[in-house]
Each structure stands twice: as C-alpha cells, then as structure tokens.
C-alpha cells in the first residue's frame, strides 16, 4: 500500500466516508462485572477516586486514580487468560502481534433468537445459514455475535437467577469449528463473557474460552452498537492496554464501516 492510499483512508475517516462506530460501554463503577462463586477471587470493580478537581489537592488540575480488574467493562481476553492458552507464545496483551489489533469482522445477527431465549446458543447450522447469505467467513476475521443484549437494563443484562446467569453465547461445537475450520481471529459478544451464561454446563465448560484461547485467538465482550455494523465489511480496531503479562484489559473498541459521502 502506498502512502497515498493511507492518506485517502485518513481523508475518508475525516469526511465520514468511513464511519467510526464506538463498540464500547463507558467504564464506570455501575457496570456489571462477572460474578464468580464468593469462595473464588473476584474481579476488582471499577473505582474512580478523585485526586484533585481544581481544589486544595490540586488547584489547577483534575485527575483520578483508577482501580479495576483486567476483565471489567468492555474488555479484551488474551490467550493467557485460559489454561488452554497458557503455554502459547506471545499470549499476553503486552506481547500479542500488533497486526491482530486491526481486523475485519463478520457480524451474525441472532437478536431475534436471543429475544425469545435468554439461553440461546449459537450453533454450526446457524453460522452456515449466515454463510449462505453472506459468504464463507474468511480467515483472520472477528466473528461478532449480535444479540442486542447491550440494550438491556443492567439487571436483565446480567440476568442472574438462582442457578446462575442466563445470557446467550456459542455452543462448544461452533467454537471449535470457528477456530479450526474458519480460522477466526477472535469472537466477540455483547454479554458479560464470550461464553453463554450457562456455559459452565457445556462440554468442555466455557467452550469459547477453551477453544479461542487454546488456539491463540482472542475474545471481546461487553460490546455495544453491533446493530450499527454491516454483516460484513466492518474493520475492528481493538488495542488492549499494554499491561505486563496481562490476561486482558478494558479497551476502546472501534469499528470502521463504510459511511455516506
């Protein structure tokens, strides 16, 4: 690619010919985080602690101290997050290949199914059905599962019952197939995890984590605005914080989509 094309691209972003869609929730203390049984270690919630705000602690400046777990808010999962990916090279957020941070996406709209069934599972036939209309999922693409879950209030969003969370996600077979047969770069969801709320009862448990990270692929979760993306043709920019040996991080996820003008 010559520098002209890159300048053309910059111009297209500036003019709106390429539209930038924010797929990120605001990182705030109110946003639900993953809930594990209390005997396990817990993700630290997001805390924003003011250092000064043009006051006695800093008369001309405003700034905050932040604390949060690596897996809070809209966040990225690196392969080292799961035991299946623990021995892979470059498996942490500080070492993962830079080029993987920019990649195209296929968006599979399952919002109708998820509206009817909170435990909806994405299966191979569903993806094959999508491929009939939009073509085979190319290698090194993100697959983003649209469920419109991000439009719910927090309680329905977390949807915790006395037998655990009930949120949609992929089944085990489709995750293995996406990694091994389609070579996806990663899998993204609107829900709190890449896996379904009841995925602990699948075989293997948490198949998205198991197969994605075992295959050196990535996860994105707590995405929003997937309804603004075309089924194909969007480019995802997902650059996690460069945390030493980090298993993931909150991040700003941007989608570049063909726009007007």
């Amino acid at each position, binding site marked *: 690619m010559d520098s002209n094309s890159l300048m053309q691209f910059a111009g297209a972003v500036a003019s709106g010919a390429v539209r930038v869609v924010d797929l990120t929730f605001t990182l705030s*203390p109110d946003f639900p985080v993953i*809930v594990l049984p209390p005997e396990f*270690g*817990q993700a630290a919630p997001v*805390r924003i602690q*003011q250092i000064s705000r043009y006051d006695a602690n800093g008369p001309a400046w405003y700034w905050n101290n932040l604390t949060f777990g690596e897996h809070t808010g809209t966040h990225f999962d690196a392969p080292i997050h799961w035991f299946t990916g623990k021995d892979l090279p470059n498996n942490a957020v500080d070492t993962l290949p830079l080029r993987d941070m920019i990649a195209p996406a296929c968006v599979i709209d399952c919002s109708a199914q998820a509206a009817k069934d909170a435990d909806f599972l994405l299966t191979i036939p569903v993806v094959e059905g999508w491929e009939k209309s939009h073509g085979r999922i190319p290698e090194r693409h993100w697959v983003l599962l649209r469920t419109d879950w991000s439009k719910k*209030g*927090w*309680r329905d969003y*977390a949807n915790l019952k006395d037998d655990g969370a009930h949120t949609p996600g992929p089944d085990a077979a489709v995750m293995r197939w996406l990694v091994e047969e389609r070579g996806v770069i990663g899998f993204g969801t609107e829900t709190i995890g890449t896996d379904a709320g009841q995925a602990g009862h699948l075989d293997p448990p948490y198949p998205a984590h198991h197969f994605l990270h075992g295959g050196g692929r990535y996860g994105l979760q707590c995405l929003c605005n997937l309804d603004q993306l075309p089924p194909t043709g969007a480019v995802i920019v997902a650059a996690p914080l460069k945390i030493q040996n980090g298993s993931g991080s909150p991040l700003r996820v941007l989608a570049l989509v063909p726009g007007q003008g």
Partner: protein
Amino acid sequence: MIEPIAKPRRKNPLQRTRLPTSPARARSRASHGFTRAAAEGRFMLQRCGACGTFCYPARDACLACLSAELAFTDAPRRGTLLSETTLHVPADVHFRERAPWRIGLVAMECGPTLVTHLHADCEEGGPVVMSFQLDKSGQAVAFAHPEREPPNMTDDRQWREMTADPKFRRVLVTNGRSIVGQEVVAALKTAGASIVFVGVAEPWKPFRGEDALRAMAGVEIVPLDIGDEKSVADLAADIGGKVDILVNTTEHVRAGGLLDRQGTSVVRDEIDQSYLGFVHLAQAFGPAMRMRGSDGVNSAAAWVNILSVYALANWPVFGAYSASQAACLSLSHCLRAELRPGGVKVVNVFTGPLDIEWFQTVPPPKVAPRAVANAIVSALRRGVEDVFVGDVAEDIRQRLAANPKAVERELGA
C-alpha cells in the same frame, strides 16, 4: 404525664438551621468512671473498698475513712427526689436555648446525694430511678426517671436530649442486601423511624429478601456501594441533609488469616468494604450530621457501627477480618471525637459470630441478626455508646478486662 411528641413539620427554608452547642465538657479523670458507666448503660458509683461507703461526685479519697480504694462498682439505682429546680434563664448558651430545664437533688438509698437532670414525670418527694447518660458533649450526667414507666416516657424533651431515639427520625441503613440489614430496617420502622433509606449495591444482582424489602412502607431503596467513593458522595448529595441516624450494616466476612491465604485480593476486599467504606461514609455524611445536631425533633443524632468483638482481640481463624474490624474500631473513636461538637453519638455494637452463611462452620452460640437489630434500637433509645450483643461478645469483653494476654493465647490456640 407528658404529651407525645408530634411528627415534625417540614422545615421553614427561610429560617437558619440552628447550630449545635455543647453543655460543659471538662471532667476530671476520676469522673470518667461515670463516662464508662453511661457509655455501657450501667449505673456505677465509687465505693470505698475499706468501709463500703458509696461516694459522689468522683473523688480520690473516701469521705468517711479517707481510704484511696475507690473503685467504680455497679450501684443500686433507687432514690428520692429531694427538691426540683426549674431553670428559666440559664447563663449557659446550650441550656438557655433549651429552657425551661429541670434539675433536681436526689438522695440515693445507697447514701450519696446527686445533682441530676429530671424526667418530666419525676415529682418532688417521690421515688426515682437513676441512670447515667451521655449528654450532647458526650459527658456523663445523672438522670432521674420516675419509678414506674409512664406513657410516652421516651418522648420527654429532656430525655430525648440524652438519647438518639429513632422515633420520627430518618435513618440510612447502608446495606439492605444482608439479613442483618433487613432486620435493622424492620426494627427501626417498628421503633417509629419516619423513613428508612436502605442502600443496595450492585442493584443488578438479585438478593434474598428483596421483594419483602421493596414492599415495606416507609422504606426507600437507594443505590449505595460504600466501597465506591463516588456512589457514597452521590447519595449524600441527595439525602445527606436528612439522615438523622446512620446505621452501617456493611458485612464482609471471610475466614482466614495470613499464611494460608494466597495473595492479597481478599484482604483488599475486606479493607475496601469495611475500612474504606467507613471512611467514604464518614466523609460524605459526617459533616452534615455534625452540623445538624440541634435541628429540632429530628436532629441528627447517631451513627451506628456493627463491629465484630474480635476487633478487640484477634481471632486468627478469621484473622484478617478481625484486623479490618480493629481498624474500623479505631476509626470509630476518631469519628466519635469529630462528631462530638455536633452532639451526634457514635454507637458501637459488638457482636460475636452472627448466625449467617459466612459463619456456617462456627459452632453456636451465634447471634441472630434480629438480636443485633434489637440491640441497635435499644442502644439508640437508651443513649448508650458501647453495646455487647450475645454471650460470645460479653465473654470476650469480660475476659479482656481480666487478662488480655490470656485472651490472645486462647483465641490463637
């Protein structure tokens, strides 16, 4: 007989909120024997170890035999009201704005004569029962009650100055997710609180008892995550000016000490929830409460902490938790000193292991959440400062008084 107090009307926004004033503060060191008695709701006098004479006021030598053996001991409470005086124009600012104010002289059956504040139903020449109370400056004063409890007894104007009665007061209970929190809410409503605000953190997580809590009249669920500075500040911005009593029902109990815990995340959670949560609440709600200590019938009156008795002596089985409670205990003494100019009490309710999930494997006796709630209401009504609920807490208190080293060894055995 006194008339029941009426529910206070809404404040006139054109009038300035009266600032709190304090009655005389200075006391001798020996007199703090009365402070201790009042804090725990006991009636104690100095009694000579040599001749058995009861003395009052506090002194360094027995009036009868000059012995210096004058230990404070629990004393009989009954006496006779010799004389009654009504102060119409006291020189002291604090009492001047509370005039007329009745005081009296009581001859105790056990010997000494006391200058005392009077309940309105005490009659000259009649029998009275005495207590020591903490006044608005946190100092012990004698208070005479009628022998038989009259109707509306706790509505007495002078008595209410000594207590933090929940009747017609507005209360914030910081954590409604726990059983203790829910019992406290119910007990305060029964005690006549006009409204109980109940904090619920992470409202997207369902919890046991939620439907019942939401259905209670006069209870308002508010978002409050005390570990989050901003959440606390936001709530104080909304209701900080109408919290008369704050009950911190935070409950974050985890077993374990130091060596068998990996890492510090659990310790950090304990500190965030217990200690920092306390700091956030104090900084957000404390200043307005201190300022509103004389704000009429529903003035700011009390801050209640529920503390583990293991704040006083570490129980290594729950060692890190004990340490977080010790930090809160220390902080409560700081808060007590800082709220004192407002006449706002800090009540510490010490409990042994509660009958809750996190003490599942601990053998009985365990304290029922309802017992904690009842102890809180009782402490507010009686105006005491330090309460020990249940056998374990009382046992630790007594053993600590006898030999702290023995307690350390035995809890660590």
